Structures are given as structure tokens and as C-alpha cells.
């Protein structure tokens, strides 16, 4: 079985994002970029399935500008077998990504697609679900455990108030939550080996997908600065303030 893992290049989780002066988006000039953390978890899960003999091949795919090659090289250095870059310089929306991924799935015929549940830049949390809908495949989102069992995959999901386990017929879509695993570090010998692994570059034109945006961003602003707190003298005062000033009770 092949496992396909889409990976997104996003602003590094450790970087403090700054809004552009004209409030049209996040300023990405000279900002460190990395693989979306949820996607790293997806790569790790796919690699573990390969190492246990349950999968034969792990393919990483990324959609975006040519710098996404670095993100794919990271996936290859972690242990993925080959990579596909669909080069596109404009911003791509979740539906476009899902359509392109569907085209890749049609070509590659993987038994499992493992995606991050969301990307930390736009937090859309849609791509996996849209891909499942486009393919007509079952989906197990927010996975904290993924077990292959014959022609099924059992996915334990982190839902409000507990865990839910679903059994899906393969092929299927899984999206990862934080607690699924701890991704490995790419070691230097493996980084060197990754240089020699195949990385195919394609364009959206190769798949005939229309990338015209359907969404318009109106305004991006920093969250309001947190005001300093106050210390109350008594429970009565707390209750009174919650009622009169905060208006929450």
C-alpha cells in the first residue's frame, strides 16, 4: 500500500507573526518557514506504518512556491520515499488544494492519505474533509491513534468530551491531531540521502485545476493587547465585578 502525505510550508511555529501595515495579511518577508507541525505528525505516522511493514511507500506532496521543495526535502529526510511539488505562486485555498490532491490521488492510487488536521497559518481545518468528499472516501479526522486492520483502518478521534473510535474501509482519509505521535528529527546522514531521492515538479496546469480564489480577505488585525489584571479583595467583589463590569454572569 502507498500512503500519500500532503505537507504545507507555513510560518515557523516559533516565529511571532506580524500583520502587514496595510492589514491585508501576515508579513512573511524574511520570516523563517517550516513544515506545518500537524503535517510532520502525518509524515511520522506514515513512516511508522512503513517501518512496521504495513505500507510499502510514502509519498509527500506539497502545493505552493518553489521554496516548498525545502519542506519536501524535510519529509524525504525524515524518511519519505519520493516527493511531488505542484508549483503555484498564488495563494491556494483549501478547495483548490483538495482538488489538486484528488488529481494526485487518482494518479497514485494510495490506500491512505494522512493529512494534518489543519495548518497553523490559516487554521482552516477543511482540506482533509474536502478531499474525502471529492473522492467519496471515508474520513477519520483529529486522529490520536491510527491502526490498520486488514482492509480497514481504525481511527481513534479526539472529540469534545472524549475519544471516539471509528473503523473505515480503505482507501481512506485520516487527519492528525497533536497527540498521535512525536515526529522524529531528520539526522544529517538522512538529510544527505534525501538529496538523492526523487522530487517531481508539476504545475497546476498539469492537473487542469482552476486556482482562481473564491474567498476575499477583507481585513487582518492583531489580537487586542491583553490588559493587566486586577486583584480583588473578596469573593463578593469578584462576583460583583463579573456581573457589573465583565457582564458574564
Amino acid at each position: 500500500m502507498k500512503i500519500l502525505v500532503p505537507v504545507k510550508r507555513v510560518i515557523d511555529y516559533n516565529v511571532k507573526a506580524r500583520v502587514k501595515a496595510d492589514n491585508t495579511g501576515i508579513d512573511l518577508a524574511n520570516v523563517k518557514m517550516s513544515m506545518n507541525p500537524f503535517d510532520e505528525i502525518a509524515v511520522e505516522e506514515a513512516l511508522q506504518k512503513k517501518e512496521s511493514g504495513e505500507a510499502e511507500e510514502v509519498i509527500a506532496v506539497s502545493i505552493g512556491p518553489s521554496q516548498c521543495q525545502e519542506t519536501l526535502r524535510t519529509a524525504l529526510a525524515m524518511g519519505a520515499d519520493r516527493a511531488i511539488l505542484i508549483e503555484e505562486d498564488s495563494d491556494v485555498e483549501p478547495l483548490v488544494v483538495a482538488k489538486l490532491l484528488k488529481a494526485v490521488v487518482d494518479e497514485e492510487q494510495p490506500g491512505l492519505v494522512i493529512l494534518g488536521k489543519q495548518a497553523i497559518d490559516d487554521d482552516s481545518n477543511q482540506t482533509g474533509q474536502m478531499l474525502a468528499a471529492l473522492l467519496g472516501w471515508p474520513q477519520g479526522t483529529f486522529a490520536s491513534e491510527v491502526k490498520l486492520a486488514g482492509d480497514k483502518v481504525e481511527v481513534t478521534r479526539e472529540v469534545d468530551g472524549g475519544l471516539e473510535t471509528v473503523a473505515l474501509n480503505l482507501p481512506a482519509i485520516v487527519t492528525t491531531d497533536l497527540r498521535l505521535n512525536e515526529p522524529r528529527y531528520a539526522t544529517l546522514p538522512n538529510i544527505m540521502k534525501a538529496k538523492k531521492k526523487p522530487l517531481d515538479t508539476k504545475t497546476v496546469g498539469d492537473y487542469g485545476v482552476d486556482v482562481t480564489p473564491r474567498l476575499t480577505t477583507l481585513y487582518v488585525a492583531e489580537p487586542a493587547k491583553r490588559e493587566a489584571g486586577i486583584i480583588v479583595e473578596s469573593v463578593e467583589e469578584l462576583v460583583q465585578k463579573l456581573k457589573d463590569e465583565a457582564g458574564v454572569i
Partner: protein
Amino acid sequence: MIRDQEVLNQFLDTVSRFVRDKLIPLEEEVAETGVVPAEILAQMRELGLYGMTVSEEYGGLGLTLEEEVLVLFELCKAAPVFRSKVGTNNGIGSQGIVIDGTEEQKQKYLPKVASGEYVTSFALTEPDAGSDAGGLRTTARLEGNQYILNGTKRYITNAADASIFTVMARTDPEGGTRGISSFIVEANSPGVTVSNPYKKMGQNGANIYDIIFEDCPVPPENLIGGVEGKGFGTAMKTLDRGRIHVAAVCIGVAQRLVEESLRYAMERKQFGQEIANFQLVQAMLADSQTETYAARCMILDAARNYDDGIRDRGQAAQCKMYASEMVGRVADRAVQIHGGAGYVSEYAVERLYRDVRIFRIYEGTTQIQQTVIAKEMMRNFEG
């Protein structure tokens, strides 16, 4: 050897993440317990950090010195105790074999050094021979078909964890520095005793010990390079690279101290504003930033020269002296910028201030570096 910008960047990125996600969060615990957890050491092995300087043919990464110092700039943003765990394998503990070892010695030991299966130590200093290393007294007498070692080595880093020591000992009681030879001594040899660790000012967990040799037999094939009388030269060549390595360690910590200082100055408010707004605080920040950058540049230059085959003992000494003194000043300013908070243990700078003090002492004190630098100047004088 990487010599490939993309691969190098990716590796530096990995090290920097490892530092941020794994090492820095553990600093306080390690300072408290004096133990670096086994799983962290295992991860450091996997990343190849024990074998940075051993060449690829013996299973290491074979980094150029320039690449090595770039890795150290990242790695040593974490408390320097972590670097100390891999320090001897990359530096003084293995370089004797790397630089002057015979082919058999390299094949036998270097793969295990590179993988981290063997930890190594470098045993030069003695109770009565510190700065004056040439005055060492440990003896190695050839008796029958083996050498017999007797003597005491002092303050030896990682000795209790080590599987092998590089030991400098006297094969000729008369010959001055030419009477010194270097040996690979297996730690489990008969007649070897390692003391309890010393209590120290900083870097808790980076342990130092005495090693006592009492009629310890060493086979002649473990004489480094196979020739007597070359040991002092081996030790000095080891230090030429080792001193640039230590200088690079100072840069890592200095960068961290600058980061900690800046963060604190941007957050701490006095007189109704962030203290970073006060020009006297800005002067401290600017001096620390500039000196760190200056030292970083000189180390990269010296490392590139080294990689081009230039062995400039004076340059290595200048890097070691300047960087170690510099990080002392940066640490001092970091404490000052933190005010009272810099003197209490909740903030990392109090610990780092103590951690960096050793850099002016080992692998040659600042005074010894000064004499080396001046001696090189005088030697090259064409009057």
C-alpha cells in the same frame, strides 16, 4: 563534509529545533540533578552529534571546522552542559587519534567514537602540571611487550563515562616535551581508578574526575602514531582545533545571553516604560551584540583558514581568548540587565553566568593564550 548549503542549512535547522524543543526545557532539571537523561543522549547519538569531526570513512559526519563551528553556534544556545557530553568525542578526546593515529587505531576506535558507543576523555592535566603541561610526570615504561603507566591525571572531563582515554605520559624521563608520548588507554584496563566527580561552580552534569594509573598495562599498538616522543605535539595539534571549538561554544552561549537580555529588557518596566528604552541599558545590549558578532566573524575566519590547511596556532589562541573573555562580559551584562532577577536562580542568566566562567580556564587559560599569541608574533618577526 557537507559542503552543500542546502543540506547544511537543513541540519542547522534540525539542531536548532532540538535545542529549542528538547534541551532548553530540560536545563533546570539537569542543573538540579546533574544528570542528562539517557533518551536525550540517545537522540544526540542519532543526530550524529558525537561524530561531527570523525571522517565519513570511519562512520562520522566528517564536518569541516567551519561546519562544526556553525553547528556549535546553534547547539550551544542550550546550556553548555549538553555540549560537554559530546564535546570530548568531537574535540580533544578523539582528535589525537584522528590527527596522528595509525590506520589500525583509526579503524579500531573511531567508528565507536563517532557513533557515541564509546565516550572519550583527554587526559593531559596533572596535579602539578596544568598550564605547564610539558612538565607532566605520568610515566609510561616499556617493560617486555607492553607499556606500564603510573601517575595521576586531574580534572578530566567525562572520565567516568569514557570507554577510552587519550593519555599523555612520559616515555623518556629526561626528554622535556620530546619525552612525552600519547596513548589510547581502555578505561577497563587493570590499574585504572576514576575518582568521584568534583563539585564545581557551574555546568552541573558536565563532570570532571581524577584518573589514577597504577601499573596499568597498555599494548604498544595503542601508542598513538606508533612512535614515541610525539605526544606533546599531538596534544598541541589537538588543541589547535579544540580551541576554535571552545571559542565557538562561547558564541552559542553569548547569543543565548543576548536573547535572554533583550527579552527581559523588552518586558521589564520601570519608571513607566520598558527598560530597553533607557540608553544605558541599550549600551549594554549593543555592546553584547557587537562583541558576539565580532567573535563570531573571527572564529569563522579562523575555521576557514584551518579548512584550507593553514595551521595558525596564534589564530586559534586569539579566538579562544577573545571569545571566552567576551562571553564573560556578555554574561556579566546579562545579569546586570536582569537586575535582582539576574542574581536569583529562576532566570537562566544566573546559571549561564556561572557556566561560562570555565571557558577562560580550560584548554589553556587566557594568560597561556596571550603567551602563545605573543610567541607566534615574535617567531614570525622578520626584523
